[in-house]
Each structure stands twice: as structure tokens, then as C-alpha cells.
């Protein structure tokens, strides 16, 4: 059995007991990527030299330090929107082909300080825009549970690699569900921290008021260990919260007895597949059996959240992606006859269809004459969405729902219909608009496909999300299941 099947704490015990070394663990991860990723497409590139250098350093720390960090020597992967010093970082886009950042993102640096070992960069939808990973300019990633289905997006490579045991944990980014959705589709845990809980320094921006970095891992505890490493204030990101992160590990053991958990009526509306509903109802029964009180609640502005998101996110895209001009990074068009043509050629050649749609849409909703009717109105609706959550969190400790209305869908099924693709995120994106905490935890299967339960907590309520997520995980007891073809 591969060592990559083990949890972080199990691996940590083995590393400390010298049953295996960090170098051996990294080599095993890299060998698994070489032999198995051809059918998955989760990695855009591996970083064997960096991995072995970091693993050798981790082995030295494990030998020398009395209490090395929990992640010391653990193989991880970074979504390709995270800047890695000297390692190509493309955001899944042709416009950044060849870009080697001159610095590390804060989250990358923090995991490196804790001794984690980077085995590669993970595939994603171009600039994290998508729900299926089919918008990557380089390759699609497929779902390890069914190669004809998508892994979800936009952190699809990050989720698929953890599910297939090619990395122990990965980082993704969640702007409208891009960690939680692929976590649900691939049967892994994914955390979306509250806005400002984790630094965005060195994260190639998609929508700056919504983006957050979050971990994907096999277990809630593994995800907590990564979150504890990356969370907290960063003087390089002025939007990070100064509030202390606290001891997130304690939450895992607290259980749900005495908690009031809300089920948003609007999240169980039409469009929810029966198999997903069944798994979710099982999870509800488990939580009740563990002593939680379940109550129905209403988030009435949910009906407008998708529309508000698809105005606000494209607006921020049109602004953020203006820097992708082929002058300072990317292949560019330096031989173009004029500067204007250099911009247009570089962007036309460099941006895929979804990015073009969002840039055009964002430019439209921000333009004079349309700003009030679209952008300003969407920002007001955003206030209503946030107020809905504030109101229910006065009455309940957390919210639970399915992460997505369906399990993983077929490759190509939604690529011709942007609106169908957008609707995939209907249950996840309200949390981004409100800036609250959330996670997705595997709760079971329908027709052989994983189904995740979403837990939403208040602003900076990560501990509550982990607490409820750990209870679902214990009852579901599915995390050791490995997709066929990736066991062994």
C-alpha cells in the first residue's frame, strides 16, 4: 500500500520513528505522479529537484528537532495560481506561459517554513475561472472516480491529486466554490477560509474581494494542519484579519453535542439530485444522533446571489486582468507594429473563451451608463446576502447543505452553456459574497461518485466548520476509500 494513503499525522509518526524518510516519501509521490498522472492530468508540472532538496532538509529537521512541525516532510502541491519562486506559474493560461515568479506567495513560504515538500503545480481552470477544470489552457483534469467525468473546478487538479494519492495535501483557491466544489466531486476535504483569514500575497488575482486560499486534503485533520500553517495576518496583504487564529486542532475533538445547525431551505430547492439529497439526509441523521439540533432556516436573498456574483466577479476580473498585457511577463507580442496591437495580439492569443467572456462582461457592467444598473445593484444585493447569513448565525452555530446540487458531471456536458456551468456553484458562492467560512467534507457516494456536505460557519468561524466537518467525517467513515486504479 502506498504511503500516500496515510494521513498527515500517521505519516508524521512514521517519519519520526524513522520507518521511512521524507526523501523516500517524496520519491514515492513523484513516482506515482509519473506513472499515474498521465490518465488524470492533475499536475501541470512536477518539481523533483525542489522536492528532493526540501525533503533532505526536512529529514535533517526531523532528526535534529525535538518537536518539528506537523507538516515537516509531507508532500504537497500548489494550485498554479500561487506564485512559486523560480518555478513556472501560469494560472492555467497561455498568457503567462514561461512566467517564473521572483518571489513566493505567503502561503507557499509558510508551508515551506513548516517543512512541507512541494512536488508540483496543480492544473486549474484558466485564472481559476470555471467549475470543471475544462477551462485550463493546457489540459483537462479528469475525475479519479470516473475518467469520463470532471473533477470540478477551478482547483480540480488540487482535488484530483489528493483523491488519487499523488500528493498528501494541496492548496487551492476558492472565489465562488473553487475549493469546495472539486473537493465534493473528488471525495476529499476542502476548506474555504473567511475572507482575510489567509494571505492573498502572491496569489494571482481573479476577484480580489472574493478570493481566498484554502487546503484540500484527505481528512479534516489534515486540512486543519495545512490551514493552521497558512492562516493569520500578513503584513504583505492589508486585507488579512489581525484576529488570532487560535487552536484549530482542539475543534476536531469537540463533537457536535448541543450545537444548533441550520439547514437553509433555499439550498434544498429544485435541481438537487436524489442521490445527493440521500447522502445529505444521512449526514443530517448522523449529526442528530451525535446530539446536534437541526433546524430549518431561510436565506431569502439566495435567489439573487448567483446574479450578483456573475456581475461582481467579472467586474473585478476585467480590472485585475488588465495587467496581463504581455509587457512585463508572459510571451507577449514584442514584434507587433504598435503598442495597441501588441496588447490586443497578446491578449487575444493568450486568453481562452471563458476569460474573454468575463473580461468583456466585466468591462460592460462597469462602463458608464450600466454601472448603476448592474455593478452597484449587485453590490447592494451582496449586502442582502451577507445580512441573511448574519441573521441566521444569531440563531444557529453553523449551516449544513449539500456542497453541489449534483455529483461530478460528464466532460463536455456544460462547456457549451456558460449559464449551466455557472449554476454549478449556486450553493457555494453565497459564502464568498458574505466572506464567511466554509468547508466541504465527503459524506458518501451516489452511483459510485463522491458527494460532499458543505458546512458554513460565521466570519472567522473556521473552528466551528472543522468541528462539524469532523463529526460528519467520523460518521461517514469513507476517507480511506481510494478510487480504482489509484489504490496500491
Amino acid at each position, binding site marked *: 500500500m502506498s504511503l500516500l494513503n496515510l494521513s498527515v499525522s500517521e505519516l508524521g509518526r512514521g517519519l519520526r520513528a524513522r520507518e521511512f524518510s521524507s526523501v523516500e516519501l517524496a520519491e514515492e509521490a513523484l513516482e506515482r505522479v509519473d506513472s499515474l498522472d498521465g490518465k488524470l492530468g492533475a499536475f501541470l508540472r512536477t518539481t523533483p529537484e525542489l522536492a528532493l532538496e526540501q525533503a533532505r532538509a526536512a529529514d535533517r529537521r526531523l532528526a535534529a528537532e525535538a518537536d518539528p512541525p506537523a507538516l515537516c516532510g509531507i508532500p504537497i502541491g500548489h494550485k498554479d495560481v500561487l506564485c512559486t519562486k523560480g518555478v513556472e506559474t501560469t494560472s492555467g493560461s497561455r498568457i503567462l506561459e514561461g512566467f517564473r515568479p521572483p518571489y513566493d506567495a505567503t502561503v507557499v513560504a509558510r508551508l515551506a517554513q513548516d517543512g512541507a515538500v512541494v512536488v508540483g503545480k496543480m492544473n486549474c481552470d484558466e485564472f481559476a475561472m470555471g467549475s470543471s477544470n475544462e477551462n485550463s489552457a493546457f489540459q483537462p483534469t479528469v475525475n479519479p472516480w470516473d475518467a469520463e467525468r470532471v473533477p470540478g473546478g477551478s482547483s480540480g487538479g488540487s482535488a484530483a491529486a489528493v483523491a488519487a494519492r499523488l500528493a498528501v495535501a494541496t492548496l487551492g483557491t476558492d472565489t465562488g466554490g473553487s475549493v469546495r466544489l472539486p473537493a465534493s466531486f473528488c471525495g476529499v476535504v476542502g476548506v474555504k477560509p473567511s475572507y482575510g483569514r489567509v494571505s492573498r500575497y502572491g496569489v494571482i488575482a481573479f476577484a480580489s474581494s472574493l478570493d481566498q486560499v484554502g487546503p484540500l486534503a484527505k481528512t479534516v485533520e489534515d486540512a486543519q494542519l495545512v490551514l493552521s500553517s497558512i492562516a493569520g495576518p500578513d503584513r504583505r496583504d492589508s486585507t488579512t484579519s489581525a484576529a488570532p487564529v487560535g487552536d484549530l486542532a482542539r475543534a476536531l475533538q469537540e463533537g457536535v453535542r448541543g450545537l444548533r445547525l441550520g439547514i437553509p431551505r433555499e439550498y434544498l430547492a429544485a435541481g438537487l439530485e436524489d442521490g445527493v439529497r440521500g447522502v445529505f439526509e444521512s449526514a443530517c441523521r448522523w449529526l442528530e444522533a451525535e446530539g446536534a439540533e437541526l433546524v430549518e432556516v431561510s436565506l431569502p436573498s439566495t435567489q439573487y446571489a448567483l446574479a450578483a456574483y456573475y456581475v461582481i466577479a467579472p467586474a473585478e476580473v476585467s480590472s485585475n486582468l488588465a495587467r496581463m498585457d504581455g509587457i*512585463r511577463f508572459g510571451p507577449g507580442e514584442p514584434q507587433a507594429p504598435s503598442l*495597441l496591437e501588441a496588447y490586443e495580439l497578446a491578449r487575444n492569443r493568450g486568453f481562452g473563451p471563458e476569460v474573454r467572456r468575463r473580461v468583456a462582461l466585466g468591462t460592460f457592467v462597469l462602463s458608464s451608463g450600466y454601472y448603476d444598473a448592474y455593478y452597484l*445593484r449587485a453590490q447592494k444585493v451582496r449586502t442582502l446576502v*451577507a445580512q441573511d447569513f448574519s441573521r441566521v448565525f444569531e440563531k444557529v452555530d453553523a449551516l449544513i447543505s449539500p456542497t453541489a446540487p449534483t455529483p461530478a458531471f460528464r466532460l463536455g456536458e456544460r462547456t457549451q452553456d456558460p449559464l449551466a456551468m455557472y449554476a454549478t456553484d449556486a450553493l457555494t458562492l453565497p459564502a464568498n459574497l458574505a466572506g464567511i467560512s466554509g468547508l466541504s467534507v465527503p459524506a458518501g457516494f451516489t452511483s459510485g461518485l463522491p458527494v460532499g456536505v458543505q458546512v458554513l460557519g460565521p466570519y472567522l468561524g473556521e473552528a466551528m466548520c472543522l468541528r462539524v466537518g469532523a463529526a460528519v467525517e467520523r460518521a461517514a467513515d469513507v476517507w480511506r476509500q481510494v478510487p480504482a486504479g489509484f489504490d496500491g
Partner: protein
Amino acid sequence: MVGVDREDGAGGLDLALVAHLSRLARLGLTDAEMAAILPQLRAILAAVGRLQEADVSGVDATAQVGGLYDVMRDDQVEPGLSAGEALANAPSHEAGLLRVPAIQ
């Protein structure tokens, strides 16, 4: 305010406006690309038109959710990237400067 043409449902977006957006956003869309993107954008705008139904009277706009204002740091000089590091990814540079095609 021009406002939303409710009869149209898609903000009156037509090929001429798509061409204007393409120029503004430096997308360089070809005629065929504009013809392809127009119905997609119109469908999205029709869907987000639902926003017009929401009652937002008296509601403040939310631009960001962290609740932080005027975050300052100490005014201290710190080392940054060298010119060489900053230019290392540029497709064209010369004598420590970015080189770009002529502005016409």
C-alpha cells in the same frame, strides 16, 4: 444613467457594443469571435437581469467584507526586487528598461 433596456433584457448589447468592449478591454476579438461571444454575453446578461427584481431600496453597497479600513504599515524602506529580477520575465527589455512597440 442610460439604464437597462427592460424590453431587450440584455442591456441592449449588440455587435457594435461588443466591438467597443473588445477595443476597451484590448481583447482584439475578430469578427467571428464577436459573433460567437454576443449571444453568450446576452444570455448571461439576461440571467443576471434578475438583480433588477431585488428590493435594494435603502441598502448600502458592499465592496469588501473584512471590515478593515485604512490599513497602514510603518513607513520604512525595505528591500524590493532588483531591476534584473523585475525585468527577468519581460519578453523584451533593454538597458534596464522595458522595451515596447511604438505608441501610434
